[in-house]
């Protein structure tokens, strides 16, 4: 079981992911944009972040730049949760150190729980594969 941070601006989805991951036994905190997430990260140390890309105030890419994922938090897995498949934003997120990209509208709850577990069981060095 792990500390998981959900960063998703859609309240319904944020609540749903929280229910699903809590049921799996994870310790879950949630934020509704990148700025809120950065604030939360001062007191919460996640092993995995579920990150939306398109959000108000601070989007996912800007969050990744500010969080310095590649430089300072190599052990934290970031799963991009977006509906912008095959987009330049996804390519950029990988460059900034994201572990995997998942299409929200294709993902059932069991799959969400599974990809979170898969990511948590992957070593940091495997992330680029």
């Amino acid at each position: 079981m792990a500390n998981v941070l959900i960063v998703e601006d859609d309240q319904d989805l944020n609540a749903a992911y929280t229910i699903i991951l809590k049921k799996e036994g994870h310790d879950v905190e949630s934020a509704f944009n990148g700025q809120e997430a950065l604030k939360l990260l001062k007191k919460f140390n996640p092993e995995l972040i579920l990150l939306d890309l398109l959000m108000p105030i601070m989007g996912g890419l800007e969050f990744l730049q500010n969080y310095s994922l590649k430089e300072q938090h190599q052990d934290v897995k970031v799963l991009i949760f977006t509906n912008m498949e095959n987009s330049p934003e996804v390519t950029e997120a990988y460059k900034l150190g994201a572990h995997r990209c998942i299409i929200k509208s294709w993902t059932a709850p069991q799959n969400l729980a599974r990809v979170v577990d898969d990511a948590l069981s992957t070593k940091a060095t495997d992330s680029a594969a």
Partner: protein
Amino acid sequence: MPASNENTKKQAVVGSRSAAEERAQSEAIFNSIGDGAIATDEFGKITRINPTALRILGYKEKEIIGKWFPSAVINVDENGVPLSLIDRPITRAFLTGATVSDRAYFQRKNGTRLAVSITVAPIIHNNRPIGAIEVFRDITLELKIDRMKSEFISLASHQLRTPLSAIKTYAHMLADGYMGEILPLQRRSLETIIGATDRMNELISTLLNITRIESGSIAIIPKTTNLVKLTEEVIKGLRHIANDKHIDVKLKYSAPAILKTDSLILKEVLSNLLSNALKYTPEQGSVTIKLTGRNQHLTISVHDTGFGIPKHSQQQIFTKFFRAPNVIKHETSGTGLGLYLVKGLVTRLGGKVWFESEENKGSTFYISLPK
């Protein structure tokens, strides 16, 4: 003077007047073309340029007439790098003897770039080129509208998907008992909702991908991919359709099929081909997917025992919105975008797609991809 001599002279005057009139007429046509037009002789020297071309390029007539076309009119790519001589439409027209159309950028006299659509027609006389005419038009506005259209579709699709994600997630949560026990009838209703959101998602994906292919903005993220695993996932995702129609789906491979490609895009391609095969194969039929590797390429074939593609429709099968008349009779739903998308995506992955088909016997679609 004898009468016959008089007549010959008159005919010569009439003849020469006709030639002059023809020249004046062609001059007027050339000058009044709304697009830019430049004519060259067989050596590529500019012999004529119309006022629109002068205005677009920013030159005066005397600065350009008699100059060698490739050095007087500079073509550059989107990054401002001059095109090599062999890549220029006019060179290709001279070399092939055929009309060539392309998009490029002109570098104007003041150094600015301008996007143009170019058509070059060689002038052929006695089976040899004696010159060429290049006609071009400014497409700046077209490109801007194209970009705006792509951005709009991309944003609209994304916005459509956000509520869809919530519908699907909560329907799944209800069906999976996250909110308490449910009755079998309620579960079936939830499965219908989930199926409908999946169909909507597929449509949005298709629209998004087509927009991105057409605007050249599709992002390819190559990763080491296990093709067997990927194909099994695709089959699993469509298994319910096969089961409903009692279609036997087989996957055959002789060795591990590992390649470096964009797995999400390849999955979309395979899903399209398999879902087509299942859709257009009657009940009790069979679909076989084979993975074979040779040298630096992997080939995927999807064979079905379905309705097949009539000979007269085979040339159009990869064109947008095309649906063969024999399948419309059996299956009314369908956008005619699937194979158009498959071809666009496979091309972006650096691969090739082709097929063999016989009406009422079935079809085999092949994809070859670099490892």
